[in-house]
């Protein structure tokens, strides 16, 4: 496939290669200031706290670009939008000068309860209208595009009337929000639902994609779980290459949240993306010439 250089519609930058900022690496990072293009934080870990994590984050944000990625915005929930939480997100974004902020295409709870998990939305017209309306409200309030990630899903509602990728594409276009394309989640979801990941990727509107996630998962044979506890498998790297060929370069982040290794392991793992990024850039230059 020929590499295409396709800017995203907000001209948000390709930040290069980053990793998720985790407690285990705070000290190493602030003592060694290792080579890393950027960091992504889990927004909720730095809200309602003024302890040591925030102190480390303040220092790290002085030296590296920070992106905020949340897990509890619950965009798909039928509960009212929590504007107080949006205020907290906005305050944190200002504090760390977040390049962008986002969450997931999911809901995390209803009736005032939070399950702290990414629950799947039924892919119905009602579900789509609901999410579009919520995304618009949140974006208007935050005065910035919301970057929403495709989650790993483990079930399909019988009520769903469209495939996940169509739901996501229509959400991005009609709500005019940005996408964080997690290629590991694409792999996991497609394995769990017997879908074709290439067809999934081909349906994505890439002008809306501003960021890509990479991660490891656990293959239980009957199904895969998005555990973020190991290396990125070859099949996922091939999906990453495909996304890269379609975009010409998007901010790329490695997630590793369980059995967290030394920082150097993360550096080596995320740098594997260079073989596709450099190859793609070289190919793009050749096409341009």
């Amino acid at each position, binding site marked *: 496939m020929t590499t295409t250089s396709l800017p995203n519609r907000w001209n948000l930058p390709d930040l290069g290669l980053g990793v998720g900022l985790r407690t285990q690496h705070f000290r190493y990072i602030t003592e060694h200031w290792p080579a890393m293009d950027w960091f992504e934080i889990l927004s*909720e*870990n730095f*809200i*309602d*706290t*003024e*302890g*040591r994590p925030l*102190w480390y984050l303040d220092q790290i944000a002085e030296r590296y670009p920070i992106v905020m990625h949340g897990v*509890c915005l619950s965009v*798909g*929930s*039928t509960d009212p939008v*929590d504007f107080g*939480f949006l205020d907290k997100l906005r305050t944190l974004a200002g504090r760390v000068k977040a390049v962008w902020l986002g969450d997931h295409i999911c*809901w995390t*709870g*209803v*009736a*005032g*309860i*939070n*399950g*702290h*998990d990414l*629950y799947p939305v*039924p892919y*119905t*017209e*009602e*579900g789509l209208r*609901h999410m579009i309306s919520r995304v618009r409200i949140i974006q208007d309030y935050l005065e910035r595009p919301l970057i929403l990630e495709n989650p790993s899903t*483990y*079930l*399909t*509602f*019988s*009520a769903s*009337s469209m495939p996940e990728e169509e739901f996501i594409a229509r959400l991005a276009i009609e709500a005019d929000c940005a996408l964080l394309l997690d290629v590991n989640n694409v792999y996991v979801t497609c394995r*769990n*639902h*017997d879908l074709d990941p290439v067809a999934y990727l081909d349906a994505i509107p890439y002008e809306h994609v501003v960021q890509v996630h990479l991660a490891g998962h656990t293959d239980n*044979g*009957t*199904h895969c*779980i998005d555990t973020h506890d190991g290396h990125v498998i070859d099949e996922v790297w091939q999906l990453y290459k495909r996304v890269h060929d379609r975009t010409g370069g998007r901010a790329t982040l490695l997630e590793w949240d369980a059995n967290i290794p030394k920082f150097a392991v993360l550096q080596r793992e995320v740098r594997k993306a260079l073989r596709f990024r450099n190859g793609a850039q070289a190919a793009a230059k050749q096409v341009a010439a």
Partner: protein
Amino acid sequence: MNLRESPRLETLERWMQTVVMHPEGAAAGVRSRPARKLLPEAAVDLENVVLPSRALSSVERLDIYAHMYYARLLEILVEEYPTTRQILGRHEFTHACRRFLERNPSKSRTLNLLSERFPEFLGRSLPRGHRNGLAVDVARIERAMEDVFDARRAEPLTAAEFTGIGAADWQHVRLTLVPALRFLKLRYPANDYMNAVRRGQKPRIPRRRPTTAIVYRRGFQVFRRDQEPAQFRLLKALASGRTLAQAVRANAHGKRVSADRLAATLGAWFREWAAAGLFCGVDHARRPRTR
């Protein structure tokens, strides 16, 4: 199922949440009365609501979420209450956590407050006995440690700021205590017990003996220490906004203490509190005017 028959989004979300948060798993969740009330057809034919995959049945797919719900939150409670868990044992602790989560689901966007009511829950639900009494007290200390970890920052008074308080002013000033400070009246010597565990010892369950302790953060490190009852009462009185003179009077309970002895005791306590960084402000504003 066609679109016309589809449950409304809100119903579907409430149903799924009810099912995956059921303490006995998704199958029991689907059969539960609240779930049947929301979606009766799911109890009759679950595939009408959740499709099976090639390898998993509908209920097995729901069980993935049900398992992850408890696994994730239990992991947090295990991390926050290591000594409570050591006292109760893994099995009993896990059982208590599951019952707690069943009755107290998270209502916060962050997980900081998840276990806010866990010590109180243990106090209500565990049978009486020295072991369980100690576990409740240790849980209160461990919860306080979480609270002060996240509490608002405040710079402690410097030595110069302390010495800047004139001798004549001391009894009239109001001292502000740092937000990262908690007061605990305990029924057992729980702090001693935790210290012994931390040293790698295997202490016996102590008999009931009331103790008073504070938990606080100095910089970004969390500390806990016992306080003598009078010392505890005085610090708490200062935290409530009383002047030193008022706090000492309230603490004296009519007892007569010699001025020298009082000065020596207060001096030692204040040195200890100042070294711990417990004070962050001095308010001279309400000093009575002299005529």
